[in-house]
């Protein structure tokens, strides 16, 4: 058994005065800088001002649409399979068009479970789901965060409610063999 002697800080340090003063100095100097040079200000006046994220930002999901406006998704459920949070629910049904064959009549994402990992986007073989730039999603209760197929594909802020066209069109896709 032994005793360890601990070096206590001196009086001047134990009052933390230098730290407090230097901190306040920074705050005041920044405040004065911001007052006279608002353009260089590091913060935004949210919600009046909004930050522009890069185009590759992984925000809320978007279901893409084909030229004719139908949803691109073929209900293969690979996204639901890849999803680590198990937040995607798909109900598939038969399409009258044999070249489409299968389409989702229901596609739900529980946004509160979603971890925005982007695996669904990567798993999709037909570019049907993408993570969009949208990140502001307020809601009043839990139900507001279960996005249904209509909301995911055609919500008003996506291309005026017409849905986002996918990068590859069907005829090109067939040509490319994918």
């Amino acid at each position: 058994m032994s005793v360890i002697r601990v070096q206590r800080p001196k009086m001047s340090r134990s009052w933390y005065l230098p730290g407090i003063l230097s901190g306040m100095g920074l705050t005041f100097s920044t405040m004065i800088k911001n007052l006279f040079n608002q353009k260089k200000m590091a913060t935004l006046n949210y919600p009046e001002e909004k930050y522009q994220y890069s185009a590759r930002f992984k925000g809320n999901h978007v279901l893409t649409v084909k030229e004719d406006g139908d949803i691109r998704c073929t209900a293969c459920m690979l996204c639901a399979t890849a999803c680590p949070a198990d937040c995607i629910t798909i109900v598939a049904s038969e399409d009258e068009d044999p070249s489409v064959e299968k389409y989702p009549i229901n596609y739900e994402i529980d946004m509160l479970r979603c971890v925005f990992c982007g695996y669904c986007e990567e798993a999709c073989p037909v570019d049907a789901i993408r993570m969009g730039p949208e990140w502001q999603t307020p809601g009043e209760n839990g139900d507001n965060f279960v996005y249904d197929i209509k909301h995911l594909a055609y919500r008003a802020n996506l291309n005026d409610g017409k849905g986002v066209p996918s990068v590859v069109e069907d005829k090109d896709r067939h040509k490319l063999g994918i």
Partner: protein
Amino acid sequence: MLKCTINGKEVEVKEGTSIIEAFREHSEDIAHYCWHPGLSVAGVCRLCMVEIEGNPRLQIACNTPVTDGMVVTNQSEMVKDAVKWGLDFHLINHPLDCPICDQAGECGLQDQYMKFGQYDSEMGQAKVKKKKVVDLGEKIVLDTERCILCSRCVRFTEEVSKTNELGIFNRGDHSEIGTYAGKPLNNDYAVNTVDICPVGALTSKDFRFRQRVWFLKDKPSVCTGCSTGCSVDVYYNKEGMWRVKPRHSEVNGYWMCDEGREIYKSTNVMTTDFVGERGSAKAVKKENRLTQAIHINAGDKNYKTATESLNSLKEKLDSYSKAALVVTGQYTSEEYDALLGFWKSQFGTDNVYHWANNEAQFNDFDGLLIRGDKNPNTKGLLQALEKHGITAKKDVTSLSDQDLVVVAGPENQWVYDDIHVIAKALASNKKVIWMSACHVDAAEQAGGHFHFIPTKTFAEKSGTFVNFDGREQSFEAVDLFVDQALSLTEAVALLKGESVELSETNKVISVSNEFVHERGQL
């Protein structure tokens, strides 16, 4: 017995065994598509190539019988190369639309590619396009592009169902499976062709697009569709049961009938129907199973738990002087034993009725599997009645003015055509306790004092069925889909005042996706 060497292993096989059978008997992997143990040899996929010592050319294992002292291998470089190229030939015109193909996950092509292929395809030319979504009949859809022309389905309709609906049309790489004009594939065993299809060319309309197979688990069970008692595998997940497939056994060989494939429907809590056109289509769900005990009093429905309901019944039991029991052949032998034993000690043996739905056709047989007795355990019921010395009466409709009628109702209600008549007849009794797995609409609408107790389906209990020729087949519970459901044994125990440990369904809101990697068989 013949001695031969398979991949360096010295083994003994029966005379007349083909090499492929010897390989499978001694659990050696061998690639194959067209060969099926229940069908004749076609020898067209050319994948089961083996090298036989002393023979410079590769031989197909399915059409070569084992001879004494034969040394066979499929591990040599020559065989591996042949199998690799065999797979490539299969795949060059295959559309590879695995993402929307229902077979993905239990596909012969996928499995064999992972086992024997794993190469980069050298095919750079355009694939042959063929018809997709061809309607073959009431139950089956064909995708001619995915078909690898193994001819298993054609041989099935030729040799097993003997209905000859299918044929291969055209030549070369334009060959495709199809039905003859005016002869759709509607025989009673048609869905077996979907099971034996090694790819996703034939899909069953009933299962098509409902689930991806990797979300399903399977467990062995016994079919409740008729008194044949085919061995089956049931496929289920947390949402319920999705399909039934035959499992090889002495009872049914490799096949089962299409009627038997419907049995899973009685186990599901909800049934889903798709209504409307694309864009506005909706999945409409309807409750199928009884999830709570229901008491109907003058049109009002009161809900209670099954346990509460039985406990209150227990207290009044001694007050009923006139009581009758109606039993159907759809429960396990163990349940009959418990129920009849209890009834005998409580009410005697006079008023026991055997509700047989279509007794006149009980001995019908279609020559393959389907029997007229649509109850899985009529034989077991008769044995239990005999054991307890009860002579069951048949005329259920004559039951009236009873204080209490207990009905062990059918689980597969659609085979009971007379359910409306019986329900109406029983409504005249003072109190009817109807044990049933599913909602009994006929009884719920018949008026009178009906009390429904939810029971377990074959998938939720273990027990024994005795099939038409007295073969006892025991099976294990698959999963619990309704947590209030009781087996008759448990219900009787509650009535006796014994404590019953009721298992509960998994109440987690959402569990992580479950994957089953080894699924299905060629």
